[in-house]
């Protein structure tokens, strides 16, 4: 360490003015990136700069190059990252952590790691980590989409992959309230996808009643059991509009997923509807009617009483199996309807 300090003093005399000028230039930028590293960032405030994501991911390679004696090519390759570290406290802090952790890997030969004998943590703490990881994956997808927009690149496939993993991940969380927390920002991310993926403005927008969750229809739920075609004991995903509190359900008839809506507006009655499920493409096991989950046309018009029953698609997933129910429920986290004509 003393050698290092001596070296810094040697450098100081000759290069201090240039170093100070560099700091003046680079630290001039406003920093909206310095949020804490241990909290899930707000969708709107973290990693706005596309370059920032790229730089962060270079840190392990940079740290390894430093530990292995960098070549001239290494110095040039990581030059922009070095300048970024001067400018960005978040990346600098991450760099220090990762450098230190990478230093712990030097010289270790591959050998068996006995993780199988570790004590198993309690299920509830695993759930908390699962919720957190889902949120991170969703926020990561948002970051990717924002960066792609900034760089005029198409990163939809990557963002969809992250969201798909978040949804599959959430399906393993047994408590519906925790699943709800895990997926709470999913809807916001849907708005970041390219315009061609977005439906026109919806006449009604439904969300699942997650707290009702995984349960067969009970005798006490009059409206559901009264409706023909939904026998008692059937597993349903309950839907509700945000504002007007209209209700709907998704049921399964063999492998067909059916949408049931009630009390639709007067202006929709007698008309065919287009149903949009923004996250429909994320679950491959569903074969959508018409092939496009953004525009599924109802097979019948809305009845004069404001009700509609129409198939959405077929799937091997079963609402009666909890993990599969959870997957489908997450996919229907937004369901928009609008007139087809």
């Amino acid at each position, binding site marked *: 360490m003393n050698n290092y300090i001596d070296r810094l003093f040697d*450098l100081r005399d000759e290069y201090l003015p240039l170093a100070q000028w560099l700091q003046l*230039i680079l630290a001039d930028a406003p920093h909206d990136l310095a949020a804490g590293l241990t909290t899930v960032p707000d969708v709107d405030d973290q990693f706005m700069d596309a370059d920032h994501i790229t730089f962060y991911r270079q840190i392990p390679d940079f740290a390894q190059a430093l530990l292995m004696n960098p070549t001239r090519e290494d110095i*040039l390759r990581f030059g922009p990252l070095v300048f970024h*570290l001067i400018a960005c406290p978040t990346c600098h802090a991450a760099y220090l952590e990762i450098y230190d952790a990478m230093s*712990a890997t030097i010289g*270790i030969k*591959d050998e068996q790691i006995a*993780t199988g004998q570790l004590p198993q943590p309690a299920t509830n703490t695993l759930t908390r980590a699962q919720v957190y990881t889902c949120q991170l994956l969703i926020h990561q997808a948002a970051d990717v989409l924002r960066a792609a927009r900034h760089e005029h690149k198409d990163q939809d496939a990557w963002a969809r992959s992250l969201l798909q993993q978040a949804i599959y991940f959430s399906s393993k969380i047994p408590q519906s309230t925790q699943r709800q927390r895990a997926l709470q920002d999913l809807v916001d991310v849907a708005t970041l996808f390219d315009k061609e993926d977005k439906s026109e403005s919806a006449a009604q927008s439904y969300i699942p009643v997650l707290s009702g969750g995984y349960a067969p229809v009970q005798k006490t739920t009059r409206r559901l059991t009264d409706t023909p075609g939904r026998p008692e004991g059937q597993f349903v995903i309950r839907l509700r509009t945000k504002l007007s509190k209209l209700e709907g359900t998704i049921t399964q008839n063999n492998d067909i997923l059916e949408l049931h809506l009630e009390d639709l507006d007067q202006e929709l009655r007698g008309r065919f509807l287009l149903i949009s499920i923004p996250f429909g493409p994320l679950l491959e096991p569903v074969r959508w009617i018409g092939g496009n989950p953004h525009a599924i046309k109802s097979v019948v018009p809305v009845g004069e009483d404001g009700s509609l029953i129409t198939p959405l698609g077929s799937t091997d997933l079963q609402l009666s199996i909890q993990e599969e129910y959870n997957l489908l429920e997450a996919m229907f986290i937004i369901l928009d309807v609008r007139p087809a004509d």
Partner: protein
Amino acid sequence: MPFTAHDLRYNLSDSFPKLYTYLHSRARLSLGTFAYDADEVEIVIEHVIEQLTKLGLLGGGDHTPETALDRLNNAQFHAFLNRSVTNKAIDRLRKRRLPTSSLSAFEDAGIEEENDPLNTISDSIWGSPPFPTPETAALQAASQKDLRMLIKKCIEGLHSAPRQLLAVIQELEEIGIQDLAQDLRDEFAMQLAQVELSHLSQHKDHAHKKLRQCLQHSSTNLAVLVALRLTEYRQNFPGTDEISFDIKYLVDERFSEEDVRMGLHHLARIGLLDWHGEEVVHITSDQRKHLAHFYEEEE
């Protein structure tokens, strides 16, 4: 069966419980008297999970490029995770105002003592440990010849806005960086001859913004790297003065085709190459001399 970095990248859902179990056990070991404080344990675990996610490893699949973490052997990867947990645990203990004498007090003797990283790290040209603060990062960047070259090239890029260039030259002179300032005055004497400087601070602000972007943008350094490689890998066309390079020969595991193309584009833009996106780059001997001068340049 232990999990691997590959599992976390390609099979997150199944490998996550193993990752969590490992991090949980290490966090409890590292947190000392707070080992049974569930919140503290979770904060440590969440920090490591967040870092792995931001690095593009967790669930990254083929969408994020491999990093050094993917290339670690499994024991090294677990050592990386273990040290990450330990560091965060120490951070938490410090925040709880507990005395922490040294890192080693919290490390697992069985794994860490035999492989004390501080005994095995080679002393890099950056010093050890490099860049402990942003200030020292700036000092070390200023002291590196190749990074000074990048700084100079970014300043030279201001020549299309002579007022901004002059504002920066004056600034360099004021803070005592005479050599660089004089080099720039000599190099751009014609452009600067007729420039009258008014609204200095406005020009300086614009120049700083451009420099900030240039220094942190890859094209300048990639151009230097490509220029280096172009003069290393050459294949003469028989009977001609022209030299040709297939782009693929310039690519390796650390330098992607996209990097190469960005560097070539930059070189073409500043007139050192005649290249319009073709698979093969043709350069004359004159161009090669200019390329060599481009990366050898020093203030």
